[in-house]
């Protein structure tokens, strides 16, 4: 396994230890532990919470995530191309422009269709 990734792996592990330690010190050693049902109840504007934690979400949230996923995948294709940019021909550049234009068409369709409106 390459060395750089070993470093990243150690970094992720240590990155979890560093913020974890103060949290543990706080909750196990220094912090007071005086629970009562009212303190532990979920926050509301002063009255008791009614019903379960379920809010009817707009389908809009999903649409935005969807358009994002499509553009994310597109960019994944472009990153290796950017690295290989020196070796590719002008024809290849036109191919990539075509690739981007097809997806820009998708964005334009979503826009016209009103899928990008919040309200």
């Amino acid at each position, binding site marked *: 396994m390459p060395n750089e990734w070993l470093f990243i792996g150690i970094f992720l592990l240590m990155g979890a230890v560093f913020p974890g330690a103060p949290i543990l010190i706080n909750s196990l050693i220094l912090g007071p532990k005086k629970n009562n049902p009212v303190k532990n109840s979920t926050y509301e504007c002063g009255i008791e919470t009614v019903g379960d934690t379920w809010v009817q979400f707009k*389908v809009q949230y*999903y649409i935005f995530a*969807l358009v994002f*996923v*499509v553009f*994310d*995948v597109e960019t*994944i*294709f472009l990153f290796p191309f950017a690295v290989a940019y020196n070796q590719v021909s002008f024809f290849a550049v036109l191919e990539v422009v075509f690739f981007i234009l097809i997806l820009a068409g998708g964005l334009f369709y979503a826009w016209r269709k009103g899928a990008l409106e919040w309200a």
Partner: protein
Amino acid sequence: MVPLSWYLVLAAALFCVGLYGVLARKNAVAILMGIELMLNAVNINLVSFWHYLNPQVMAGQMFTIIVLTVAASEAAVGLALIISIYRRRNSVIAEDMDLMKW
């Protein structure tokens, strides 16, 4: 060194777990998650064959990226279908979607 067969066995196991999820789960979203597991198993296979057999040819990685694209498209359309059905029939249970049955 890790031999190729270890990766293949792992991918086979992951695929079977995903298959179980697809066949046994009631919730349509959970079925979709099972499909994602199966696609990941395929990706493990592709990348390990690339690594062990001929790393000079990038076909394995190339295929993996195409599989990722398909997975993303499939998740997008599949979940859109599930949301649409939920809004019409108020259910995400796969067995309830039986309009085409007679």
